């Protein structure tokens, strides 16, 4: 059968349209059509680029961030983020701008910024509604504890100043605030410790941790309590969480004396409790993780409900030191029962990345982001009720590290 040239042109044209439609419909599953997205994934690529991917589904499929995501430009790059109601908040340490922005298809849209000079964020806490409390230190001296209270909706500072906790003294030159929690009404709890730090290559952490109760919003000190069972309470929760309140409003937090944070590895990583009616650590409660069957230090803790938590622990036999702590896959995940102290190791590939916001709890499912050089980058689903594990969404293409997974909206559960 002989076809005329116009017939071929029509067939060729149809084929082109068919291919174009297929390509466009593939693209339309990207951030361009992510208005119903529930989750934000913060990806560091092998090409050294950073992407944010919005998706409504963590259960299956495969996403290439370089195709699907939005590349984050230099001024907004950094995984030390606060994510809420599809808004991102971040302090740029170079420009000193505290910005509120949205990640749209192909671009970052800045809604508002204000200058926040000489401030370094350690912890944040949503106090009530849109009121956001930031605690931190004066940069670059890092020797005075400070706070900024702001309305995140209007991006107006409500108040700011020094936190009424003791500045470092004696041999100590700086401090770390790793725990910030609001108690009922007009009280805050701050957990912190002190350091000697005079050069890049030399720092020492005190063997004591402190919990201070402060009046809110005056930020005046009520009382300070010491605990010497471990040191370095919590950590920067803009990067990874280390504490939570349970159903009874009891506060649990993790100490992190391992080499990646406190660098007092002879002291144990442990979980502490501050009862809802108290302002000091419960001396009758001590969950020694390093002394358990885990036999390692851990960084990061996520509450699953029903007295269970997930922790992320290192494997000291698989890395040599700080040089390879970040890029070597050596992290394990364990589910702990806070009451019985039962420990269950999750059968997951070893994860890489020293600190990551890598767990989201949604109903009965805990989504866990794993970066395995051998087994790929996947979101795994842990069923809290049944204990089963299933591999979900794959992050493919240029994905090197999934540094954060966040819920875009608190209320969508």
């Amino acid at each position, binding site marked *: 059968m002989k076809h005329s040239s116009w017939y071929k042109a029509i067939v060729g044209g149809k084929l082109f349209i068919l291919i174009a439609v297929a390509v466009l419909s593939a693209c339309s599953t990207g951030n361009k059509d992510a208005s119903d997205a529930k989750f934000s994934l913060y990806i560091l690529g092998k090409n050294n680029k950073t992407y944010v991917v919005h998706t409504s589904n963590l259960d299956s499929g495969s996403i290439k961030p370089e195709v699907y995501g939005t590349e984050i430009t230099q001024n907004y790059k950094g995984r030390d983020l606060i994510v809420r109601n599809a808004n991102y908040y971040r302090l740029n340490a170079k420009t000193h701008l505290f910005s509120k922005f949205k990640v749209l298809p192909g671009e970052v849209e800045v809604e508002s910024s204000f200058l926040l000079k000489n401030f370094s964020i350690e912890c944040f806490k949503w106090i009530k509604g849109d009121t956001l409390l930031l605690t931190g230190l004066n940069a670059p001296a890092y020797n005075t504890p400070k706070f900024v209270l702001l309305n995140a909706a209007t991006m107006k500072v409500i108040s700011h100043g020094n936190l009424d906790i003791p500045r470092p003294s004696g041999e100590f030159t700086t401090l770390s605030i790793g725990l910030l929690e609001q108690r009922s009404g007009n009280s805050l709890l701050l957990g912190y410790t002190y350091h000697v730090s005079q050069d890049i290559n030399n720092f020492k952490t005190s063997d004591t941790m402190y919990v201070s109760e402060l009046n809110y919003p005056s930020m005046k000190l009520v009382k300070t309590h010491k605990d010497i069972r471990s040191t370095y309470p919590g950590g920067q929760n803009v990067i990874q969480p280390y504490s939570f309140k349970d159903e009874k409003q009891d506060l649990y937090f993790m100490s992190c004396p391992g080499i990646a944070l406190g*660098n007092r590895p002879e002291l144990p990583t442990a979980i502490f409790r501050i009862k809802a009616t108290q302002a000091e650590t419960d001396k009758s409660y001590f969950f020694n993780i390093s002394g358990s069957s885990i036999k390692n230090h851990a960084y990061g803790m996520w509450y699953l409900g029903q007295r269970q938590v997930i922790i992320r622990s290192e494997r000291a036999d698989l890395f040599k030191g700080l040089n390879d702590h970040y890029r070597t896959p050596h992290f394990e995940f364990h589910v702990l029962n806070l009451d019985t102290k039962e420990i269950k190791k999750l059968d997951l590939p070893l994860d890489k990345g020293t600190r990551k916001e890598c767990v989201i709890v949604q109903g009965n499912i805990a989504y866990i982001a794993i970066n395995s050089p051998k087994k790929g980058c996947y979101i795994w689903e842990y069923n809290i009720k049944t204990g089963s594990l299933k591999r979900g969404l794959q992050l493919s293409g240029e994905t090197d590290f999934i540094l954060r997974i966040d819920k875009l909206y608190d209320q969508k559960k």
Partner: protein
Amino acid sequence: MRISKEALEHYHQGACTPAERKAVEEWLLSTSADDLLLPPGEDKYVHKAEMWNNIRSVTDETETTKSKSSSYYVWKGAIAASMVICMLAAAAYFLLQQKVELLSLNNNSAYAVKQVNSIGYDVSVGPNTIASINDGRGIIYLNGSVLILANKDVQLVLEGTKTKISLKKGQSYIIFKNKTGSESIIVVNKQDVFDLPPLMQRQITKHFDI
């Protein structure tokens, strides 16, 4: 024994009879010095004079050639001088190269960072740092801290150890001697700095303004 010119010619041409061959060879091996028989009418002394003249002319040609070579000697001298100059230049270049390959990275300041840019590296030298890179030997000595951008893929060995430091072209690294842990030296890609302990990060970002 007398041997004719024709007999000698036949011998050289290989055309003589066995008897003639034997006669010629006996004549050649004999110590007697009989005069050659010249063709009739030719004078022995005329031939002798011609021979001397020929010898003289050859000698004169040699002398003439020698007198022409004065310019040759000038050129020869110039070439030799050029070769010496080239050798000196090569030696100087080699020495200069040696100087570039040994990159000194000392900073006595207790607070300020010092910038050192060379052919192979752009380096911010941290406060109180004594360091050097010997590119030729592939050795780095470091006591302190540096932020280094390599302009080529390079592998250096920490002096006095077997510790190897691999730097990729176009990427920046913070390298510092660690006093707090068991590792003697920390090498971290600039983009991975935020996974170091926050206490180290503060000092690094403060010193190197990153």
